[in-house]
C-alpha cells in the first residue's frame, strides 16, 4: 500500500448519527508546551482518537536561503548554526565541508579530527536534549534535569574551545580557526569517563519503567518502507531496521578511520527510537575516544585563498546530523557570494511522517511522536 | 444529639429543592439544568438526613450527585450545545402534560388528606445508629428478590447502552 499523503485533512466531514460525539478540531500550538517551539498541529479528534493532522509551519521562517545569496561564503557560515541550534556544530561541519568540496580542497587531518570530536560531542548533546524533553513530554520530569546537567559538561568544552556554547561557529571553510586549548584532550577524556555511568542512569530511569514501556511501545510505528517513501532519515530510519548511516555509507571528514557500529531497531516504534538514540550516544563516545587518542599533530587550516571564490558549478554534500541527513546544495556562479544555497533539513522532511505515525492513535501519542521525531523548529522553518 | 432548628432546615431545604427543580425545567442551557438538578438532589439528601436516614443520604450524594450527574454532564458536554440551544426544546404535548399534572396533583391531595391517618404525627423513634444495618437486613432479607431483579434490570440497561453506543462489538 502506498502511504497516504500528508495533507488530506478533511475538516468538513462530520458524522451525524445521534450517538456520535462531535469531532473536535484542536489547534495544538504554535504556543504549546510540547510542540518543541512554534510548531502548530491541527488535530481532528474523535474523542481522544486522532482522525487526522495537519502541520502548519513557518512561524520561525527567517529566509536563511535568501540571506545566503546576499552574503559571502565566509559571512554565511555563522548563519547555519541558527538552523538546528541544538546541533550547531553539525550544521557548521556540513556547510564547511560542502564549500570545501566546491573549492576542491580538503581540511588537514588534525582539523578533521577536531571536527569529528566536536561534532560527536554535539551529537551527544543533541540526543541528551532530545531525551530530556521527550521524557518530559511523556510525563517524566526528572530525566530532563539529569540530561541537562550532563549536557552542560559538553557545552563547557565548547565554550572553552570557541567561546560560544550553543551557536558555536566552531569551524571555518578550510579547517578550524582555533587550535585546541591547553587541556582540551584531558577535558574530553575526563568527560568520556564521566558520561557513561550517566547514560546508564537514564536507562535505569526509563528503559524498564513499565509506564514508559506502555507509553512508547507500539506507538508511532513506522515501517522501513514508509520511512524510505517519506524520506525519513537518521535514528527514525534506523529504528525501523534500515542500517544506513551516511558516516558509513559515504564517509566524510575522516569517519572511515573510526570503528563504530550503526545501532538499529526492529519495530520502528517510539521505544526502538529511544533505544537507538541511546545506543548512538554510546557509539558517539566510542568515536570520540578513538579520535582523541589518535589525534595527529599538524596544521589546522588548509591553504585556501583569502577571498573564497569557488569555480562555477554546483555541489550537494550531506552529513549525518543528529536528526538525519543534513544536506547542502550550493550553486556557485564564480563570485564571492553563493548563487543559491539549498539546505536539506532533516527535521523538515521527518516531520512529514507525523500524520502517518499518529493516525488512529490518541492525543497523548501525538505528543510522544512529536518528541520522538526530534524536530527543531529552527531547522524546519529555516 | 438533639436536632437544631428543624423547621427552619426543613423549609429551607424544601424550598431549595423546589426552586432548583423549577430552574431545571426552565433553563435553556442543558448544563445549567443539570447543575440545578444536582442542587435538588443535594437538598433531598439533606431531607433524608433530617428523616434519620443517613445511609440513604450518603448514597444519594455518592451515587446521584457524584456519579450519575457526572455522567449526565459528560453526555451533555459531548453534544453540541450551540445546536441544541438553537432548536426549540419544548414538545407540544399539552394534553399529556396536563393529564400527568392532574393525576399527580390528585395524588398529592389524597396523600395529604388521607396521610394523616397513615403517618404518625410524631416521627417514629428510629435508632439512628443502626440505620445502615436495618437497611441491609431489609434489602438482603425480606426484599432480596426485588433487589436482585433491580440489579438484573441494570445489567440489561448496561448491555443495551453498549450495544447502542458501540459501532462495532
Amino acid at each position, binding site marked *: 500500500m502506498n502511504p497516504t499523503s500528508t495533507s488530506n485533512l478533511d475538516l468538513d466531514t462530520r458524522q451525524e448519527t445521534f450517538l456520535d460525539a462531535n469531532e473536535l478540531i484542536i489547534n495544538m500550538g504554535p504556543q504549546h508546551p510540547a510542540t518543541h517551539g512554534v510548531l502548530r498541529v491541527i488535530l481532528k479528534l474523535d474523542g481522544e482518537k486522532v482522525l487526522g493532522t495537519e502541520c502548519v509551519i513557518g512561524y520561525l521562517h527567517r529566509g536563511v536561503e535568501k540571506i545566503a545569496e546576499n552574503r559571502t561564503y565566509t559571512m554565511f557560515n555563522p548563519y547555519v548554526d541558527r538552523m538546528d541550534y541544538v546541533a550547531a556544530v553539525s550544521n557548521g561541519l556540513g556547510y564547511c565541508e560542502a564549500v570545501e568540496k566546491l573549492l576542491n580542497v580538503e581540511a588537514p587531518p588534525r582539523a578533521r579530527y577536531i571536527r569529528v570530536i566536536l561534532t560527536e560531542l554535539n551529537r551527544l548533546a543533541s540526543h541528551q536534549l532530545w531525551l530530556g524533553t521527550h521524557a518530559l513530554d511523556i510525563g517524566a520530569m526528572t530525566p530532563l534535569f539529569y540530561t541537562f546537567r550532563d549536557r552542560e559538561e559538553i557545552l563547557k568544552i565548547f565554550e572553552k574551545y570557541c567561546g560560544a556554547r550553543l551557536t558555536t561557529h566552531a569551524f571555518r571553510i578550510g579547517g578550524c580557526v582555533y587550535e585546541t586549548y591547553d587541556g582540551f584532550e584531558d577535558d574530553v577524556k575526563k568527560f568520556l569517563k564521566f558520561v557513561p555511568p550517566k547514560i546508564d542512569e537514564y536507562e535505569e530511569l526509563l528503559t524498564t519503567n513499565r509506564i514508559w514501556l506502555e507509553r512508547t511501545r507500539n506507538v508511532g510505528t513506522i515501517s522501513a518502507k514508509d520511512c524510505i517513501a517519506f*524520506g525519513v532519515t537518521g535514528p527514525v530510519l534506523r529504528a525501523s531496521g534500515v542500517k544506513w548511516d551516511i558516516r558509513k555509507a559515504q564517509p566524510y571528514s575522516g569517519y572511515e578511520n573510526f570503528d563504530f557500529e550503526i545501532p538499529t531497531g526492529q519495530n520502528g516504534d517510539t521505544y526502538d527510537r529511544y533505544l537507538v538514540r541511546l545506543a548512538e550516544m554510546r557509539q558517539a563516545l566510542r568515536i570520540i575516544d578513538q579520535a582523541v587518542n589518535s589525534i595527529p599533530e599538524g596544521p589546522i587550516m588548509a591553504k585556501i585563498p583569502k577571498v573564497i571564490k569557488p569555480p562555477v558549478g554546483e555541489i*550537494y554534500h550531506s552529513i549525518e546530523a543528529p536528526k538525519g541527513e543534513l544536506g547542502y546544495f550550493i550553486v556557485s556562479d564564480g563570485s564571492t557570494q553563493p548563487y543559491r544555497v539549498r539546505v536539506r533539513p532533516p527535521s523538515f522532511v521527518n516531520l512529514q511522517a507525523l500524520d502517518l505515525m499518529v493516525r488512529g492513535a490518541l492525543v497523548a501519542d501525538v505528543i510522544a511522536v512529536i518528541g520522538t521525531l526530534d524536530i527543531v523548529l529552527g531547522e524546519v522553518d529555516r | 444529639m438533639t436536632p437544631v432548628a428543624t423547621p427552619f432546615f426543613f423549609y429551607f431545604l424544601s424550598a431549595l429543592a423546589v426552586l432548583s427543580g423549577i430552574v431545571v425545567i426552565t433553563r435553556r442551557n442543558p448544563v445549567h439544568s443539570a447543575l440545578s438538578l444536582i442542587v435538588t438532589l443535594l437538598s433531598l439528601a439533606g431531607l433524608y438526613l433530617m428523616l434519620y436516614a443517613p445511609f440513604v443520604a450518603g448514597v444519594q450524594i455518592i451515587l446521584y450527585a457524584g456519579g450519575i450527574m457526572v455522567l449526565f454532564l459528560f453526555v451533555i458536554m459531548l453534544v453540541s450545545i450551540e445546536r441544541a440551544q438553537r432548536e426549540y426544546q419544548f414538545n407540544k404535548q399539552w394534553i399529556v402534560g396536563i393529564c400527568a399534572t392532574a393525576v399527580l396533583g390528585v395524588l398529592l391531595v389524597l396523600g395529604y388528606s388521607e396521610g394523616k391517618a397513615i403517618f404518625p404525627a410524631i416521627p417514629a423513634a428510629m435508632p439512628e445508629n443502626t440505620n445502615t444495618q436495618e437497611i441491609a437486613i431489609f434489602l438482603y432479607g425480606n426484599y432480596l428478590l426485588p433487589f436482585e431483579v433491580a440489579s438484573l434490570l441494570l445489567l440489561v440497561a448496561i448491555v443495551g447502552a453498549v450495544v447502542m453506543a458501540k459501532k462495532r462489538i
Partner: protein
Amino acid sequence: MPWDSEMVARFKQRYGSGIREASTYLGQSYMIVDSSLIHEILQLLRDDEGFDYCVDVTAVHYPQREQQFDVVWILYSFARNLRIRVKTLIHETESVPSSVDLWVTADWLERECFDMFGIKFDGHPNLKRILLPDGWKGYPLRKDYGIIQQDKEWVQINLGIESGQ
C-alpha cells in the same frame, strides 16, 4: 566531465536528445532532461534503477536565461549507495509534473518550491504555501525579489504594523 555509466547509456539510447546532458562534477553525477520527460524518467529511476529515496526537490532561478528555472531532484539509491541529481529546465509560466505519486516525501518539498519560487507542480494534491503565510504575494527566492522586500500589504493587514523591517 561526462557521466559514463550503463544506466545513462540506456537512458540515452531510449530517449535520445531528451537527455540533454549527463555529466559528473566533483565526483557527483547529474543529468539534465527535458521537462516533458521528467516524470517518466523519475519513474524509471525509482522503479527500475532502485532510486527509492528522494532526498530533495529544489529549484534555482536564473532570470537572464530564457528557461528561467532549474528544478532539481536529488535521488539516492540504498542498493547502489549512489546519489544523483536529475534536473529539468522550465520557463516561468511552465509547470512540471509532480513527483508526489512517486515519493510521498516530495509533497512538502514541492510545496516549498512553490512557496519560494512559484513553480507549479501538476498533480500535486495540496499545492499551497508552506513556510510563508497563505495570503502572501511574491516568491522570495526568485532573484528579482530583494532581500528586505516584503509583502507590505499583508504585514499591514495581518500584523497591524507599518512595516516588518
